[in-house]
């Protein structure tokens, strides 16, 4: 899929229309003029969400009541569709070819992957960020997985509420165990699905991992189950059932659920050393990109096309040598959007790219060096 054009009205400070190249698009401009807002607009079309705020009303330009982001997406040589997100007060109106669609249907139209400094939490933040990274990648490949996750999380919340109540009411161990059983049974079912999906997804990421794209050190990843060393992980459901039985007292004392895939992690190493503890900031950025590139490949092997790749403030994050490697790797693969505030970046990487200058939110076409190629 290719985003051909992008228009924004009253979405933050944006105005004007961008005509996008199938390959590299460079959104250039001084800081504070709205470069990132254009990436946010693309992200909104792909996900119906913002990566800046959870409250979309904040993205409506001050004093206005209706914001519209609209794009033309080419699905194949013969099929182009207009996709639009309108934000009016607290409602979000999604349309495809000017016909209103459900979120589910809308989400199939455009896919995008984002690289920005917030995403660095994947390589240096808490395990939660890494689980989300894995789960997001799996959902992009198997959309039904989102239901498994939501069932699991709901069961977990119910179980935690039960444990807290049992703790407070000083329920006997026997009675607690009895009341836990129906929740644990569902927990085990969904946990086993999640474990299997994540293990397989990490295998998939490993297959395409460009281990030394940016550095001489080798990046490697491994799924780290919290049940590792406790028994046979190949029979995950049985193992978890057994562990849950043993740990009722511990869970009752803690007042929340202690075992399951919500305690797992993705181990990322650099030449065998824990990246989170020992990696430099540059190495962490390289590792994040490598993970994201393999996310793109995993997506491609399922759908036979790439999502859009959005890279915010890329030159604040990486030096030109690494950017050069990255862009070379991406050419002939993804439709890529990068933002930069440096003139030298445009001069160095602008050949063959679409260059969009942003001034006070307005997109101005600088020069066109490329044509559409599909």
């Amino acid at each position, binding site marked *: 899929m290719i985003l051909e054009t992008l228009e924004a009205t009253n979405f933050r400070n944006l105005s004007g229309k961008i005509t996008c190249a199938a390959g590299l698009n460079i959104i250039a401009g001084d800081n504070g003029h709205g470069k990132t807002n254009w990436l946010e607009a693309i992200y909104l079309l792909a996900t119906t969400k913002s990566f800046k705020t959870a409250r979309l009303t904040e993205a409506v330009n001050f004093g206005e009541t209706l914001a519209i982001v609209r794009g033309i997406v080419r699905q194949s040589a013969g099929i182009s569709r207009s996709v639009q997100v309108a934000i009016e007060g607290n409602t979000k109106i999604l349309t495809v070819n000017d016909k209103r669609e459900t979120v*589910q249907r809308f989400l199939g139209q455009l896919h995008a992957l984002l690289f920005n400094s917030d995403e660095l939490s994947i390589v240096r933040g808490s395990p939660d960020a890494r689980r989300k990274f894995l789960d997001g990648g799996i959902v992009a490949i198997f*959309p*039904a997985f*989102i*239901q498994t996750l939501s*069932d699991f999380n*709901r*069961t977990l*919340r*119910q*179980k935690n*509420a*039960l444990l807290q*109540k049992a703790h407070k009411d000083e329920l006997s161990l026997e009675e607690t165990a009895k*009341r836990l*059983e*129906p*929740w644990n*049974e*569902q927990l085990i079912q969904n946990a086993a699905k999640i474990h299997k999906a994540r293990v397989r997804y990490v295998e998939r990421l490993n297959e395409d991992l460009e281990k030394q794209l940016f550095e001489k050190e080798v990046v490697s990843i491994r799924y780290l189950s919290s049940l590792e060393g406790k028994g046979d992980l190949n029979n995950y459901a049985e193992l978890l059932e057994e562990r849950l039985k043993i740990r009722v007292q511990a869970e009752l004392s803690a007042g929340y659920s202690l075992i399951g895939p919500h305690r797992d992690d993705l181990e990322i190493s650099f030449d065998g050393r824990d990246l989170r503890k020992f990696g430099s900031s540059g190495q962490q950025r390289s590792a994040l990109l490598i993970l994201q590139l393999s996310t793109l490949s995993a997506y491609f092997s399922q759908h036979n096309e790439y999502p859009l790749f959005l890279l915010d403030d890329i030159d604040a994050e990486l030096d030109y040598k690494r950017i050069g490697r990255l862009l070379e790797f991406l050419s002939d693969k993804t439709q890529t959007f990068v933002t930069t505030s440096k003139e030298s970046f445009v001069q160095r990487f602008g050949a063959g790219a679409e260059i969009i200058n942003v001034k006070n939110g307005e997109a101005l076409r600088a020069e066109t060096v490329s044509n559409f190629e599909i």
Partner: protein
Amino acid sequence: MLEYSEPVAKLIDEFKRLPGIGHKSAQRLAFFILRLPNEKVESFVSALREVKEKIVFCDVCNNLTDVNPCMYCASQSRDRSIICVVEEPYNLVAVEKTRSYKGLYHILHGSLSPIRGIGPDELMISNIFPRLSPENNDDVEVKEVIIATNPTTEGEATANYLARLLKPLGVKTTRIAMGMPVGSDLEFVDEVTMDKAMSNRREM
């Protein structure tokens, strides 16, 4: 200071007690009532009073009814050897609409949900057990209990909890199947439903 005069504020507060009604809806409803002619308000009030006076829980199955036992429990033409367990009285209505089920019912009035403070003691479960003895069931033995709670996490947990209590008593316990809506084209079934339907497939 009150936004509205006391009687109006009080009415709004009462509406806010209703499930799914927030402040805005409560205001709308209150002003709707205020604009109604007196006789409409009277008939509304008497409907509320009447339902509380005349409707009771069926002693046998917990259905809401104006005769006790309810019409299903009292009927001579129903199959007393099967009991279908549902969460709410409106789930009973949905099963009845199929016209294919002729057995009895048992209504739990909810599903397990620790988050909302609903444990086994808050559901109307315990009076199903005496029903399984023939002497309490017109000398008919209950052969099967069908658990038709909702396909939600809470409904599944409730079904699971019940099955654990019923199975040791030797009664056949079944769970209704979840999956594809009938009459739907495979193309339009969402992936989640499809996934569930696939895992609940049966041999032919």
